């Protein structure tokens, strides 16, 4: 049925209205910034690249979170797991003298294991996802503090090389490639973020596993009655989200080059906010990676605007994010009710 739809029909599918709203509002906010602060260089490619560089860790985590939210669940442990990853890397390299890759591998085992365990508890013991992952968050945060209560700097050639590695954006002028001015670059974190978005899109759109995720989020009971493996899918989704949290933690460790037991506190809600602004419904069944990508960009452009303004307290950023959330939820309500009427 779907492949018979004309392109126009497919584009105007109400399913995508939220994504368009996110992209549209991002463009409006960006245009506003360009209009107000073009003299300070808001419109440069550097500013745009910085949106990615400064928020890559939120974006990477948001990929997994989007999937969890589409299944109708929630994961509050992501900030703490990412922070624990940072602690593993910092403590492992600086205090124990291990190679960072060993620490990252240990973190992966920890993060994915915790995710799978939480998924198992949620599905088989029927404990609400909110409570299970909250306990996971307390646990990870507590272990962070057990490792160290002080911030540990990371000094390791491997980490320095990875964090310092950057691709300069070039342009072709006068017969040769030159760096664009003002200098703009992308780093490892940005590439990781983009790769994760692509993987996430592929899983959601092109695999049976992805379709199961949507089906479970739409109605878990009917999905199970249709014979879809709802337990396995849910457990794997939480495991994948654990993977994303660890990668986000690696990316954050590269960004700040230290591990701190209280870093990324409240990060889970920032990530959920990104996903919701990107059109993911917390009731499950609706959401997309491209929406989440723009959700991350939209949420990160606000602090950028406040920095460019220079006079506002950074707290206005929180208020603006809250208002944005309110706006999006209202749009979602409107879309859902109008879609309901059309039926």
């Amino acid at each position, binding site marked *: 049925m779907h492949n018979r739809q004309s392109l126009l029909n497919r584009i105007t599918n109400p399913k995508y209205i939220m994504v368009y709203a996110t992209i549209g509002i991002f463009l409006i906010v960006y245009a506003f910034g360009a209009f107000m602060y073009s003299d300070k260089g808001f419109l440069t490619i550097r500013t745009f690249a910085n949106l990615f560089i400064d928020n890559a860790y939120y974006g990477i985590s948001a990929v997994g979170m989007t999937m969890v939210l589409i299944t109708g669940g*929630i994961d*509050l442990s992501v900030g703490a797991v990412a922070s624990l990853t940072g602690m593993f890397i910092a403590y492992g390299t600086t205090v124990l003298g291990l190679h960072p890759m060993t620490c990252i591998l240990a973190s992966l085992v920890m993060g994915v294991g915790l995710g799978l365990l939480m998924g198992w*508890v949620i599905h*088989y*013991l*029927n*404990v*609400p996802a*909110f*409570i*299970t992952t*909250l*306990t*996971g*968050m*307390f*646990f990870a*945060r*507590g*272990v*962070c*503090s*057990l490792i160290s*209560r002080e911030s540990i700097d990371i000094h390791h050639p491997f980490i320095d090389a990875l964090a310092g590695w950057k691709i300069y954006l070039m342009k072709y002028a006068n017969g040769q490639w030159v760096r664009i001015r003002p200098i703009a670059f992308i780093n490892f974190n940005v590439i990781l973020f983009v790769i994760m978005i692509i993987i996430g899109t592929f899983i959601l759109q092109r695999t049976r596993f992805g379709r199961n995720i949507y089906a479970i989020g739409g109605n878990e009971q009917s999905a199970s009655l249709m014979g879809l493996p709802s337990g396995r899918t849910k457990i794997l989704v939480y495991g994948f989200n654990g993977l994303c949290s660890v990668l986000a933690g690696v990316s954050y460790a590269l960004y700040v080059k230290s591990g701190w*037991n*209280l870093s990324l*506190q409240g990060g889970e*809600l920032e990530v*959920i*906010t990104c996903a*919701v602004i990107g059109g993911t419904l*917390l*009731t499950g069944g609706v959401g997309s990676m491209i929406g989440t990508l723009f959700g991350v960009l939209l949420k990160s452009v606000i602090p950028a605007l406040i920095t460019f303004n220079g006079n506002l*307290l950074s*707290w*206005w*950023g*929180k*208020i603006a*994010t*809250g*208002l944005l*959330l*309110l706006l999006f*939820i*209202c749009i979602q*309500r409107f879309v859902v009710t109008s879609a309901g009427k059309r039926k």
Partner: protein
Amino acid sequence: MKVSRLMQSKVTWAVIAEALILIVCFIIRPDFFSISYQPSTGMLYGSLIDIVNRSAEITIISMGMTLVIALGGTDLSVGALVAVAGAISLKFLRWDVLTYNTPGDYTVYPYVLVIFVPLIVCALMGLFNGFLVAKGGMQPIIATLILMVCGRGVAQILTDGKQFTTGYSPFRVIGQGSFMYLPMPIIITIIVVVAVALFTRKTAFGAFVESVGVNPSASRLSGIKADTVILIVFMITGLLSGIAGLIYSSRIMSNDSNNAGLNFEMDAILAVVIGGTNMAGGKFSLAGTVVGSLIIRTIVTFVYYFGIVSEATMAFKALIIAVVIVLQSEPVREYFAKRARKKEGVSHA
């Protein structure tokens, strides 16, 4: 029969867990249960008093949270409202730090405003949450996420991002004073718990909340104004967060918009769930919630006794809570129910 029914009740498990933790505390420190009287402050001292005293904020908030969860929702904004209440009260106490530059035993605006404006503002913010849920038809977790994100920003902007301190003695009474030999927060907690219990159990309101939590449309058809119930419940939760905020800021005699009420929403939700109220909505137990809140605080005290750093208590809290939650989970309770039935079958035969 009676025992098996008790074993199936979630509240029983909560009480057993609390008793076990207390017994372990007693074994480690035999003076754990001793309570002494300090004539200079007119207050009783002791670990038990301290646990109840320190759990006051969470107990008060979780009274409202119990009702919200019984409706089938969650309120994430309570921690932010604690910060807002503290910021407003300190703003009225000091108003302009440049003019009144030394903290002392004075208040710039009347004490009535210091107390009631934060409470009214928090109640209104709760009402805003309720409005989004009841009239906007939003999921409670999302609707309250808005104020959770904004709330601390509002608190910071109210005080220009500054931290005020005060020495006003009537304000100190709320968090550090005493009444009838007990610390004031305990007295306030008792009043709040009794008031909420009377309001829900002696009027039909509690039944309305449970009914809306189980099936909103059915209760609407049976003549319950579901919207009004939701509005009142969220307003109560906002108001109670305001009271907790006053206690918190009176304990530190300052406003701390970054840390005041941090993770309170999580602790309150845990207290409610440990206390046996189902997150899907429906039946609720206020007594269970009080026990749940005490468990959370007892764990913290318990871990202090082992001399473990305070931030790491979270890991132990998580482990103990995980055990309680697993014991309370449906499959485990069913297992116990099955065993109980089997035993009964044997005895009948």
